[in-house]
């Protein structure tokens, strides 16, 4: 692991800003392992993030990196990828960043099927601003802006991505780190828009408000409520009621945006025929 840190991290920017017990460091290392596993060209790999706890990861990773504005990672990533399709473009975002303020960009990046991988650190809360509810905070949970429990229903972001047109969708957790690395690698290798939802614990802003303040208990909850795609097939809807499914949830082949645009260029240069 030390070798990976030396190779891929901006060590001079460490230690990171994340709280003790936060899962974001584990998720970030899973991304680094996936990049290493795929042996991606270091110079041709771009990391773009939005704003929030998870989005600070871009500053710790030694690539060309953009810490963009809140919710806007995908538009910036879209511009980079379309402008130079040779680049591997990876987006790091959080649940508030990606699905609230960036929700519109999220569905449209999926719809276009542009070859960008989005790694969504889902800690079910706005951590940076101190524990407000996000579109991925489960109903009835406490948040600093929902002191009596949330009444809003949450997105299943993987279902949303698939419905919007994403051609690769996977989910894993900070507990299931090997699987997380594996699905991130598959997502990056996939041609088209790919989403990996990484469930990660926020003991400080989510756990303390919801009576699970110990990081270990939050990790155990990830372990106990996760069911693999294969195992889920054998379970009844009742047995799956309080579970979530991890693994590759969806994969299909479809025309990729930048390749389609190359065809537009070819057509335009032939006089539109």
């Amino acid at each position, binding site marked *: 692991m030390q070798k990976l840190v030396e190779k891929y991290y901006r060590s001079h920017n460490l230690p990171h800003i994340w709280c003790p017990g936060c899962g974001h460091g584990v998720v970030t290392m899973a991304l680094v392992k996936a990049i290493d596993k795929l042996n991606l060209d270091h110079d041709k790999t771009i990391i773009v993030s939005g704003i929030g706890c998870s989005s600070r990861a*871009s500053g710790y990773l030694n*690539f*060309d990196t953009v810490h963009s*504005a809140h919710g*806007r990672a995908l538009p910036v990533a*879209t*511009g980079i990828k379309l*402008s130079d399709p*040779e680049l591997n473009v990876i987006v790091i975002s959080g649940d508030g960043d990606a699905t609230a303020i960036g929700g519109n960009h999220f569905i449209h990046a999926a719809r276009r099927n542009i070859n960008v991988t989005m790694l969504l650190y889902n800690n079910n809360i706005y951590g940076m601003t101190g524990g407000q509810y996000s579109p991925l905070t489960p109903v009835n949970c406490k948040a600093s802006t929902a002191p009596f429990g949330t009444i809003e229903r949450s997105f299943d972001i993987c279902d949303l991505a698939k419905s919007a047109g994403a051609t690769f969708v996977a989910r894993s957790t900070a507990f299931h780190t090997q699987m997380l690395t594996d699905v991130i690698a598959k997502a990056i290798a996939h041609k088209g828009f790919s989403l990996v939802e990484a469930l990660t614990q926020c003991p400080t802003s989510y756990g303390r408000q919801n009576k699970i303040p110990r990081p270990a208990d939050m990790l155990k909850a990830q372990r106990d409520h996760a069911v693999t795609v294969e195992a889920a097939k054998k379970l009844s809807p009742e047995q799956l009621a309080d579970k979530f499914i991890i693994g590759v949830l969806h994969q299909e082949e479809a025309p990729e945006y930048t390749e389609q645009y190359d065809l537009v260029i070819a057509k335009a240069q032939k006089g539109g025929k």
Partner: protein
Amino acid sequence: MSKVVLMQGNQACAEGALAAGVKFFGGYPITPSTEIAEIMAKRLPQVGGKFIQMEDEIAGIGAVIGASLTGKKVMTATSGPGFSLKQELLGYAIVTEIPLVLATVQRVGPSTGQPTSPSQGDIMQARWGTHGDHPIIALTPASVPECFTLTIKAYELSEKYRMPVILLMDEIIGHMRERIELPDSYDEIVKPERKKPTVPKEGYKPYHDVDADGVPPMATFGTGYHWHVTGLIHNETGFPDGSPNATKLLMDRLNAKITDHLDDIMMYEEYRLEDADIAIVAYGGTARTAYAAIDMAREQGIKVGMFRPITIWPFAEAQIVALASKVSKILVAEMNCGQLVDEVKKAVNGKIPVELLAKYNNEAITPKEMLQAIINLEVTEPCKN
């Protein structure tokens, strides 16, 4: 060699961008600027460039920021409500020093306002629309040929000073058709290039003012420099640094990019000002009225001329100060309730009277209206203070 064509201002803006070497456009349809996007959608792929219609205005400027990082010359275009939405990432591009050209064709506001009617109500939004202290360059064309030349100039300034440049058009200029002489080939037009780093990749600091001109060299993404771009206040390494010292250094350098290069950035036209007693200050579509009104007034023996700011931001403060010692009265004409007039008054500082001819009813100021304002001004006594 050149060719003469009849063309709309919006079209000339798009052609100017192509002449300057634009390779990426990201935008969203909005009246009265949509023609720029439509032309780009057709012309960019013909030259191997990329066009994308994004899901909203913010995404449009977001995409061009990304494309600019890959070393391309980029454009987004908008109007009124879209200009409001773009302010968020305009500020991002200013503080991260990412070159881009933002064309905005002013229409009547606030809000949806009158989408097809002319206005010059976004003068102050162009200056202060995005939050926080920041420098900005905005150029205002007053003719179709100038839409072409000023768009090229916008790229020159944007790449040279590593900052966004606003092409602040108005509906009159954007939708007006007139004669324009264009080069047969854009190959003969010098393509502005941004300063690239010459240091070894390991030692590259993306915000280090190596040449002491306020403009740090900018590496292209994907070429191995591994640099970090953030909207947080940062030091010369590009990494967040919220210390008072780093904050002040960054703000001072950003502002100095303008204040140290005013001669290079400041463009203006003087029309029949040589012997003028009255100066009209007008810009964009309103300047077209002023040419006619001045000629009419001159026929009646009134010595009047025009100072036309072409660079609207930074404001031509020194030029207005000089003007105030040359003429005895200034009339500021604009299609809003009075925006640039306050900048003029600030520069004149009470030395001579400054009057306002404001029109904000969806219609352009007519030459007759402006002539009447000139006559009214001529008969009033200069103030005695």
